[in-house]
């Protein structure tokens, strides 16, 4: 118990440190003193203040929210499907959300009767479309999972659903005009730096509700970890917790995808890192640990994506994939050896 408390303290301090570092690094170097001054409300050089307030701060806050959100949905999917490799990106939930966004952005092009909207001025529409898309895929995957328990088969189905939604998006693009397609394509690259304070006004409250609700679930999630029958035998309603997890995952993934685009592999990797570090599968520890580690890792990914010292930014999705995929391979190999999940 002591060891884990210490880990929590170290990770929290790490987050503060990396958060400040994330504000500091970029094409324009801003000294740490200035950042600390700004955060304390003291005046600093105007150009620095502009960069920090309008670009770096929203980006770093987005990274925190995305990190916590993506990681917790990964944990929720893994526990829900009792599958160590489940995650919103692998199961196609993120793709579903993309399809929702694509339909919302591109559909008016194809069906002229619909009111034309653009990503930049109808956030509610965008969020709702994205969440709906996520729910559709989650509903399909969950209903298949009830009669197919095999770990790998479920993942293959998720990947197939990803292909289907991907193709549907391509078809939508094919029939759309180049300008809308371009704005959609930029969106699909996934970027933390695109978020503005206006978008954060949507992102922060919605995802926070999801994160807060997730913190209330350790009991039920521990119970379903022992299997459906044992969960029922201690009076935990398996149906209720399943629906709750699906709703929370859909809400968080949908909202995040709407603003940041798909983020791959972080959702699988972070819960496993949390289990390895904290040496427990007990959700009482695992849920907060996963959130904090997610924040920390996402901030690191953000720093890496800016290639410190250069002016270019590589897509965040590529960074999370490069970091996350090896962890997934490691988990598969360990799984083969130990024949147990988590």
């Amino acid at each position, binding site marked *: 118990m002591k060891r884990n408390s210490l880990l929590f303290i170290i990770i929290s301090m790490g987050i503060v440190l990396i958060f400040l570092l994330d504000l500091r690094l970029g094409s324009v170097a801003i000294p740490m003193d200035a950042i600390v001054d700004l955060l304390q409300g003291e005046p600093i050089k105007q150009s620095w203040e502009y960069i920090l307030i309008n670009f770096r701060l929203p980006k770093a806050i987005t990274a925190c929210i995305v990190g916590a959100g993506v990681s917790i949905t990964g944990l929720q999917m893994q526990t829900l499907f009792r599958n160590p490799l489940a995650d919103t990106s692998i199961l196609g939930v993120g793709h579903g959300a993309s399809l929702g966004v694509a339909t919302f952005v591109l559909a008016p092009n194809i069906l002229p009767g619909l009111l034309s909207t653009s990503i930049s001025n109808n956030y509610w529409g965008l969020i709702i479309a994205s969440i709906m898309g996520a729910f559709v895929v989650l509903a399909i995957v969950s209903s298949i999972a009830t009669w197919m328990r095999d770990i790998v088969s479920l993942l293959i189905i998720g990947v197939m659903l990803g292909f289907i939604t991907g193709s549907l998006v391509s078809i939508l693009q094919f029939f759309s005009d180049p300008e809308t397609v371009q704005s959609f394509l930029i969106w699909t690259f996934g970027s933390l730096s695109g978020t503005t304070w206006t978008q954060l006004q949507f992102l922060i409250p919605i995802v926070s509700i999801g994160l807060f609700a997730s913190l209330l679930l350790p*009991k039920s999630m521990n119970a379903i970890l*022992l*299997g459906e*029958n044992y969960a029922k*035998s*201690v*009076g935990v309603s398996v149906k209720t917790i399943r629906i709750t997890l699906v709703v929370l995952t859909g809400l968080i993934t949908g909202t995040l995808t709407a603003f940041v685009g798909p983020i791959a592999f972080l959702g699988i990797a972070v819960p496993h890192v949390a*289990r390895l570090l904290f040496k427990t599968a007990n959700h009482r520890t695992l849920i907060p640990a996963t959130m904090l580690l997610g924040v920390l890792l996402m901030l690191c990914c953000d720093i890496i994506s800016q290639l410190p010292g250069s002016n270019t930014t590589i897509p965040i999705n590529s960074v999370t994939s490069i970091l996350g995929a090896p962890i997934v391979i490691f988990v598969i190999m360990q799984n083969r050896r130990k024949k*147990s999940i988590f």
Partner: protein
Amino acid sequence: MKKTILNLQKTATGYKYSNKTKVISREINASIDEGKLVALLGPNGCGKSTLLRTIAGLQPSLEGTIFINNTKIENLKGKAKAKLLSLVLTDRIEVANLIVRDIVEVGRYPYTGSMGVLQPKDEILINEAIQQCNLEDYSDRMYSELSDGEKQRVMLARALAQDTPLMMLDEPTAHLDLPNRVELMKMLRDLAQEMNKAILLSTHELDLALQWCDTIWLMNTDGYIESGFPEDLVLNDAFAKVFSNDSFYFDKTTGVFKLNRRTYGTVFLTGNNVIKEWTRRALEREGYELIDNEKDATHCVHIQDSKKWLLKNQNKKISCSSIEELLNRINNLNNNVK
């Protein structure tokens, strides 16, 4: 008078599909009093697990009523039922990274709030359950690293922590070796008596059930249950009817199953009781029938002191120093006759 904990009235179990109903067992009338350890015994596939699942409410019963503590279980929901009945199932727990205490804690879930925060009373009951199952040294160990016997004790401790009048275990001894089996059965018997619980376990291990259980629910292949004292069921041939077939039969004297084999010859055996018993086993396994009449026997074996077997066959006398040698000699003599 003892309180009845579990009461089944005209219960039928089975599966309901959209177009047809598959009945596994019907007309089950049986009950368990507090402090009793009951074994549900029957051949594989006769519906033991289905009955347990039905009592546990994991699947609906087709007919009849099931009472736990005089409450119809159909009327109970989640938590209320979880306070009356705890389970140890055959479901494997595949999760690594959970310590024993984490799993035993789950037993207290019916009593905790929505966050599952444990009160001091819960902690006391968890510690007691861990102690009663001899797991004090294991409470911080990873569940996945334990042996099958230890894992089974963890699941028992979890059920115990649930503090219910009725406890049901589905084939708890299935993967255990003999010492672990005996330990578990002894533990269950002690729990039933000391804590006044009603414990129902399913098994197909006749000898354990005969030895340790107060009552046996004997289920035949058609899913009917005959309930009674183990010894009564032996004497009224109930076991013989359920388990016997063409290749083996139930021997009432010893309480074990014996193979129906053609006999190669008859043996008249005399001597020291312990050595005689084991010699008899070996002879019967090899297909010789023991008879009480020296004249009719093909072979006579006299067990001398100092562990020697004297084999007399017509006019020959052979002294053997082990059962193995004795049987080789007898087999040789038999082959020569043929």
